[in-house]
């Protein structure tokens, strides 16, 4: 079986989608000749030409705004914001237009736009290179927001995002770009709006996405040695959220922990916890716990390990919930 890094799997997803659809464009800063700073667009320009894969000036609002105009003329776009912290100039275009254009035009205009954003921390990056912007987008009606945890699901989610008639904010965990996963690439499987159980267990459900999924799996391994059976749910689709799976997992285990890199306040953990209250309150054996980044600006590399949820913090939260 083939081995794929997330970067290579996303690259393959773009190639396959571009081969399937001659009106799909890929553009952004350094995506052409260089192939993207994380090489996700490597080789695309040579393969598909400068009309379909092209470098742009450093103009995030212009890039996203242009994608809207291109959609009006029947072109699909995958645009790259080079880093999470550089996506903010495009925020107005995303929130005021990309998210609302279908509603504003009474359903007349599809916006098949994928906004790829290398996201989250864990790569010893400089400031503005370790942001977790998911709440901004997940809170905005009209956007879909997904965050794969690895290569195989990254391929699937990117193919699904490109095929989607609605705009998708695609958050790629930078920390997982070079992590290998074995398997065949396919778009079949869970769709956007569906989470997936990546490890079954019956004493506590742990919800995570992006690079935190792997860390939760490590914590689950450690806890298993202590006789604790943890179910790990990869949320993967942050908007829409798989409320059914969240509710069912909380009901079946009676305990829940939510893990993310983003600061705790108004992070996805708050939403997941509230959904658990609505869907599973009578089944809960303990309050829902959150293991998250702190409510501080993302720290410099030397302190990154003190900010990100660690295996120990996750395991401790599970033990706390179980012994409640």
């Amino acid at each position: 079986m083939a081995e794929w890094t997330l970067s290579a799997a996303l690259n393959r997803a773009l190639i396959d989608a571009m081969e399937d659809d001659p009106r799909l464009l890929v553009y952004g800063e350094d995506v052409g000749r260089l192939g993207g700073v994380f090489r996700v667009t490597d080789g695309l320009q040579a393969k598909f030409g400068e009309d379909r894969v092209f470098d742009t000036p450093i103009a995030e609002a212009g890039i996203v705004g242009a994608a809207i105009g291109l959609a009006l003329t029947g072109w699909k776009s995958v645009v790259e914001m080079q880093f999470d912290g550089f996506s903010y100039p495009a925020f107005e275009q995303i929130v005021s237009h990309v998210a609302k254009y279908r509603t504003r035009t009474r359903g007349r205009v599809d916006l098949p736009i994928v906004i790829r954003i290398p996201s989250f921390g864990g790569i010893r990056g400089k400031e503005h290179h370790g942001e977790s912007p998911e709440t901004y987008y997940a809170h905005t009606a009209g956007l879909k927001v997904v965050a794969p945890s690895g290569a195989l699901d990254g391929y699937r989610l990117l193919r699904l995002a490109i095929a989607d008639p609605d705009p998708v904010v695609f958050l790629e965990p930078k920390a997982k770009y070079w992590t290998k996963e074995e398997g065949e690439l396919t778009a079949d499987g869970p769709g956007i709006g569906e989470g997936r159980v990546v490890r079954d267990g019956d004493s506590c459900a742990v919800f995570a996405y992006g690079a935190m999924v792997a860390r939760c799996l490590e914590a689950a391994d450690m806890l298993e040695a202590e006789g604790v059976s943890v179910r790990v749910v990869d949320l993967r689709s942050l908007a829409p959220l798989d409320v059914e799976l969240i509710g069912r997992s909380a009901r079946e285990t009676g305990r829940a922990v939510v893990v993310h890199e983003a600061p705790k306040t108004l992070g996805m953990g708050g939403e997941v916890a509230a959904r658990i209250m609505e869907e599973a309150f009578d089944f809960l054996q303990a309050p829902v716990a959150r293991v998250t980044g702190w409510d501080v600006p993302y720290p410099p590399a030397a302190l990154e390990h003190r900010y990100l949820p660690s295996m120990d913090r996750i395991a401790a939260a599970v033990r706390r919930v179980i012994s409640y």
Partner: protein
Amino acid sequence: MDAPSHWAGTEPVRILEPDGTTVGDPDVGLDAEQLRELLRHMIRARRLDRECMALQRQGELTVYPPFEGQEAAQVGSAFALGTEDWAFPTFRELAAALVRGVDPVQYLWYHRGTWHGGPYDPRATRFGPICVPVATQICHAVGVAMGLQRDGADACALAYFGDGSASEGDFHEGANLAAVFGVPAILFCQNNGWAISVPTGLQTAGEIWKRAGGLGFPGVRVDGNDVLAVYRVTREAVERACSGDGPTLIEALTYRMGPHTTADDASRYRDEDEVERWRAFDPIDRYRTWLVAAGHADDGFVRICDEEAAAWVAEVRAGITATEPPPAEWMFDWTFAEPPAVLARQREEALGG
């Protein structure tokens, strides 16, 4: 006559003087019928604009942004576009919308509070949704131009914006993208002297049209109250764009006779004297005087235009006042192509499933 301060600097391209005499060649390539059509459009637009002010006062429209004084800038530029060309408005381009054939009642759904920015079909009309976040629509027009370029279409995209919008980052990003990619785009600035209460002199220390030079494409300054001059410079820009010669920035010097919107009190920041001085620059008086003097129309034509416009505006009024609030489903129906489960549940809750 002293022009106001935001006209200072480079003399704009002008064909008709404010008194209707000519200073340039009035042959802009339009026949007599088309020349009369320009006047008819301007008269109708002004009538409807004034009616909208009244409709707002009567509670039939929500906040309304009048465009009186800018009829030549809008009609002249929109008239220069071909049927396949696109235009992207701000929230003050009703006159341009009418020239493009947008249904006025559907357009006014926006100001009635019936629906948001794009109540009409932006693709069928080639007229983008009404756009309030200023300058953002410039990037959309540039995107359309990128699409047209890739399709090898014989068409272009024009973005309207104001002197205030020209201070926004999206103006620079959009203009620069258009330049770098050499796309068929026209950036049409109506410099009307005021961004709500802030005069042009506080938006820019230079002349807006000159920015094109720094970006690497041509700019032109035109008397925005001279419909012939506006038509000519826009037509030239359309031809440049469609010949593959890239974008043009047009700065049309005009004046906002009314308040920013019906919610605005312009007396807090400008003198009535200034507004009155501007009556002498009125775009419709100037053009009508010339059109009749040049023998392209007579007083009878002007009278018929007025009468037709009055009857037409009455129809629009009847259409808009008869517009009922939309069904509540509309809130939900177009958030996504298919509603996710969570939203479907909310829809049921809101509508009593």
